C-alpha cells in the first residue's frame, strides 16, 4: 500500500471511503501505465535516425468521460529533402481529442527524431505522422500542422485532419478544414 493511502487511513478522523477508493484506483492506473510504457524512465535511450513508427507508445486516457484537447508542439523537427538530401526543418503542431489511448510524449520525441535521415516531402511528412498517430491512438479527432522553414524563399505549411466518423468530430474536422488558412501562421 502506498504512503499516500496509509497517511489517509491513519490521519482521517472520519473515513472518506470515496477518497480512498479514488487513491487506490489512481495507484492502480499509474502502475498500469508504468507497465505499458517502455521508453519513459528507461534509464538509457536508444536514438534511431531512420523512420521508426514502432517507437510510438500509448497510455490509457484517465478522463474518457471528457472531451478535451491535447496539443503537442515539436519545434525541432528535421528531415531530409528526398531529392537533394538537404536538411529541412520545421515546427510540428499536433492537436487531438483523445478517446481511450494517448500518445506518450517521450516515445513521440524519439519517433520524430527518427525522421532525421529520412527523405520526405513536407506534405508527405505531415500526412504520414497524422496517419501513424491515428493508427496508434484511434483518437476522436486529430490534426497535424507542419510549419516548415522556407526553402527558396517559400515556406510550406501542410495540414492533416482526421475525425473518427462520429458526427460531432466530423463537424469539428469540417470546421477546422474550412478555417485552416484564415490566419496563416508564422514560425517564431
Amino acid at each position, binding site marked *: 500500500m502506498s504512503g499516500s493511502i496509509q497517511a489517509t487511513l491513519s490521519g482521517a478522523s472520519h473515513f472518506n471511503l470515496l477518497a480512498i477508493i479514488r487513491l487506490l484506483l489512481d495507484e492502480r492506473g499509474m502502475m498500469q501505465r508504468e507497465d505499458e510504457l517502455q521508453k519513459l524512465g528507461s534509464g538509457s*535511450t*536508444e*536514438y534511431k*535516425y531512420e523512420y521508426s513508427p514502432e517507437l510510438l507508445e500509448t497510455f490509457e486516457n484517465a478522463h474518457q468521460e471528457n472531451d478535451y484537447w491535447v496539443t503537442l508542439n515539436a*519545434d*525541432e523537427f*528535421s528531415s531530409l529533402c528526398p531529392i537533394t538530401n*538537404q*536538411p529541412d*526543418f520545421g515546427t510540428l503542431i499536433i492537436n487531438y481529442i483523445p478517446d481511450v489511448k494517448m500518445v506518450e510524449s517521450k516515445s513521440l520525441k524519439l519517433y520524430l*527524431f527518427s525522421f*532525421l*535521415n529520412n527523405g520526405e516531402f513536407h506534405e508527405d511528412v505531415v500526412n504520414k505522422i497524422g496517419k501513424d498517430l491515428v493508427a496508434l491512438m484511434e483518437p476522436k479527432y486529430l490534426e497535424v500542422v507542419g510549419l516548415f*522553414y*522556407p526553402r527558396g524563399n517559400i*515556406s510550406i505549411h501542410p495540414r492533416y485532419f482526421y475525425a473518427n466518423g462520429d458526427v460531432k468530430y466530423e463537424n469539428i474536422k469540417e470546421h477546422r478544414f474550412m478555417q485552416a488558412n484564415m490566419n496563416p501562421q*508564422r*514560425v*517564431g
Partner: protein
Amino acid sequence: MSLRKISIQKGTLVQMSSNELLFLGKSGQPYRGSLYISFISVGESFDSVDFKHYITSLRSRTFYAEDIAYEIFSTIAKSIETKELGVVVELSARGGIMQRLSFGAEFSVTRKNNIFQVG
C-alpha cells in the same frame, strides 16, 4: 573539413547566422540550436556553399554540446585567416537547461524575431 577561400575586401566585418544547426550529443540525442559567426576580413572569406555542407555534415557527428562552438571556430580558423573571429552557439533546452557556447572574440548577436524577418 576544409572550406574553400574566396577573396574579399580587407577590413570587411562579416557576420553570419543560422537557425538550422543540428548535431548529435554524446548520448546520440539530436541537439538543435542557432549559430552566429563574426570576423573581420584580412582579405579572405569562405565559400558559403562549402559552409552549408559543413554545417549539414554535423547532423551525423557526435559532440559534447560544450565543444560545438570550438568545432566550428577551428574549422573556420583552419580554412581562412581572419581578425577577431568569434563563434556563438545558442542551443535549445535539454532537460530544461539552455546552453550558450562561445569561442574566440565576443560580439553581440542579432536575433530575428521570426525566421521571416529580413534584416
